[in-house]
C-alpha cells in the first residue's frame, strides 16, 4: 500500500489547550481548517465542549519540526546513565533531615 502524502486540500492543524491558568497548554489533537481563524473556531467547537480549557493555540502541523525517531536512542538514552543528576544519588546522614 502507499502512504505517500496525498496533497491534503485543507491544511492540518495541531490543537493545544490550557486547562486553566497556571498550567501549560497541552496538545489535545488535530483538525483540518482552511486558515487560522477557522482552525480556532473548529478547535473551540471540537475540543472545549466540556470546559476543557480557557485558552487555545493552533499550529500548522507542517510547521512542527520533530526529532528523528531513528535518533531517539542516541538523543535520549545517555540521560539514563547520569544518575548523579538526581538527588537520591547523594548519601546524606538521616539525622540531617529533609534536604
Amino acid at each position, binding site marked *: 500500500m502507499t502512504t505517500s502524502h496525498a496533497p491534503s486540500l485543507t491544511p492540518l492543524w495541531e490543537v493545544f489547550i490550557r486547562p486553566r491558568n497556571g498550567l501549560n497548554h497541552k496538545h489535545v489533537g*488535530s483538525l483540518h481548517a482552511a486558515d487560522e481563524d477557522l482552525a480556532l473556531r473548529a478547535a473551540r467547537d471540537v475540543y472545549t465542549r466540556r470546559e476543557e480549557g480557557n485558552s487555545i493555540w493552533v499550529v500548522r502541523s507542517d510547521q512542527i519540526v520533530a526529532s*528523528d525517531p531513528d535518533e531517539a536512542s542516541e538523543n535520549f538514552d545517555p540521560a539514563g546513565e547520569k544518575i548523579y543528576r538526581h538527588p537520591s544519588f547523594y548519601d546524606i546522614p538521616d539525622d540531617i533531615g529533609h534536604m
Partner: protein
Amino acid sequence: MYSQGLIGAEDNVEETPEFLEEFQARIDREEKIEPNDPMPSAYRKTLIRQIGQHAHSEIVGMLPEGNWITRAPTLRRKAALLAKVQDEGGHGLYLYAAAETLGVSREQMTEELLSGKAKYSSIFNYPTPTWADIGAIGWLVDGAAIMNQVPLCRCSFGPYARAMVRVCKEESFHQRQGYELMMTLAEGSPEQREMAQDALNRWWWPSLMMFGPHDSDSTNSDQSMKWKIKRFTNDELRQKFVDATVPQAERIGLTMPDPELKWNADKNDGEGGYDFGSIDWDEFWRVVKGGGPMNVDRLAARKKAWDDGAWVREAALAHAQKRRDRAEASKVAAE
C-alpha cells in the same frame, strides 16, 4: 534534520524476522506505538481500516438520531440529543485524525466511505421510525459501543488509544440519557410503554451484531489480539454486554425479544451469565454488504452533505489564499 512533523509515513521498513520479533516484544512490554515508529505494514493497514471504519460509524451514526432533533418532545430532550449528535461528529473527527497519523488522507477516507469501499457499523442501517428508537440507540447502541471502546483505550497504537479516552469520557452521558428516556417511556401510558418495548424488540439483535462475527468466523481477530489492538474477542465483549444489559431491561419492566435467554450460573467461570439465542448472521452479512433497510439512504445523505459542502470548502480555501496574498503584498510594499 527531520521535518516531516507529526505524521508518520515511514512505510519502507524491511520486515526481517528480527524486526517483527522486536516489534512484538515492544507490544508485549505494553509499550505504545507512535506514528513515527517503525511498524509492520500489516499493523498499519489493520489500524487504518479499523480506525477508518470506526470514524465512518461515528459520522454515519449522526443520521438516525439527527432524524429526531426537530421532533424531540421537550426542550430538555432536544438539547441532550443535539449535544449527543454533536459529540458523534467530534468523535468522528478525533478518529479521522488518529487514522491520518498513519499516512492516509481525510479526502481518501471520505472517498472510500462515499464509494462504498469502506464499511461502517451495520447498526446505522436500521431506521428510526419512533421517538423510542432514540432511547434504544442511546441505551443499547451506545452501550455496546462503550463495551467495545473501553478496552480500546489501552490499544497499542497511541493516537487511537488517546482518541478513545476522549470518546469514552464523553459517551457515558449518551448511554445514560438513552436509558433514562426508555425508563420514562416504560413508566408512561400503555402506548408509551408499548413504544419502548417495540424499539427494544427491533434494536436488541442488531445491537448484539455490533460486536461482529463469532470468534471462530472473525478473520482479523487473532492477529489484532496479538498486537493488542483488541483486548477482548468479539464473543467475550458480546457476553459482557448481554450480562450488563439484561438486568437493566428487567429493572424498567421491558422484555428482551429472546425466548432462549436465561440465567446460567455456571457461565463466566462460575460467576454466572446469560445464555442467549443464536444471532441471524444472514441478516448481519446482508446489512454489512449494503442490503440493510437504510444503506442507500445513509450513503446518499453523506454524499449530499459532501457535495453540498464543496463550495464552502472551496470558498474557505480561496479566502485563506486571498488573505495570505494580501499580507504578502503589504509586506513587500512596506520594504
